[in-house]
């Protein structure tokens, strides 16, 4: 009689069974961990100045980089990538202000983005501001 009463009392409590909650939660965690793809994006930052197009001739002192196919010219002298980095570092662009930090980047038609990117990265890494030179039409 007493046993029966006890059993009935157990049924009457009306508790929500939460025992399996942790199993569900851990299953969800495992799902998220397995399904997640971690993407590590690497990039260079280049703040290209925007504004009105200027037909005004740039000062002769403004350093210019010319790209044509695989050839890199720095102030009309042929250089390789390491030399370009060294020359840009020698300019100490990060310490300069305003227009003094500008490097003109000119490229011939058909220049691949790979070469362009390397020049862009070199200028940005040395604290320069890239000014793109447009073709005359």
């Amino acid at each position: 009689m007493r046993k029966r009463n006890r059993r009935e009392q157990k049924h009457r409590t009306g508790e929500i069974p939460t025992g399996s909650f942790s199993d569900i939660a851990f299953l969800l965690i495992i799902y998220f961990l397995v399904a997640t793809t971690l993407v590590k994006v690497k990039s260079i930052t280049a703040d290209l100045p925007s504004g009105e197009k200027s037909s005004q001739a740039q000062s002769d002192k403004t350093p210019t980089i010319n790209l044509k196919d695989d050839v890199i010219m720095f102030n009309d002298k042929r250089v390789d990538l390491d030399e370009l980095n060294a020359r840009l570092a020698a300019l100490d662009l990060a310490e300069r202000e305003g227009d003094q930090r500008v490097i003109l980047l000119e490229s011939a038609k058909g220049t691949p983005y790979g070469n362009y990117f390397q020049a862009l990265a070199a200028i940005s890494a040395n604290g320069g501001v890239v000014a793109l030179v447009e073709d005359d039409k």
Partner: protein
Amino acid sequence: MSKRGQRKKKRRAIPVPIASMGDIAFLLIIFFLVCSEVAKDKSNLQVTLPNSEYVQKTKTTVAARVAIDAEGVIYFDGARVESFKDIEWGVRAVLASTVSDDQRHVQFKCDAALPKETFEPVMKAIAEAGGILEAVGEKNQ
């Protein structure tokens, strides 16, 4: 008598408190959900990224994503667009509500083999719209 006592001791079950396990697990799930950033770039692009020794892990949160695939097709936040003009308008719209320079970064992904005529107008469009270029590349091995 002493034997009886030992038997009783052996039978005593030690309950492991597992009541809080569910709470811990759900807290972990919430942590992962809050901390994770959903990739907005839905375009599964086939792009050969350019190399440089100066590339670094992107630290800023980008406001928009612009990409050009190997075929020269332009994408803005994963959606295909017709020309670089759409990029300029799109970036301008995204950056309209920004207040600081940190919010002006625009990710730019482009195939390394593409010629200047294809990528330069897009780069200029981003610059004209006021975006700071985050050009994606790979580190030289």
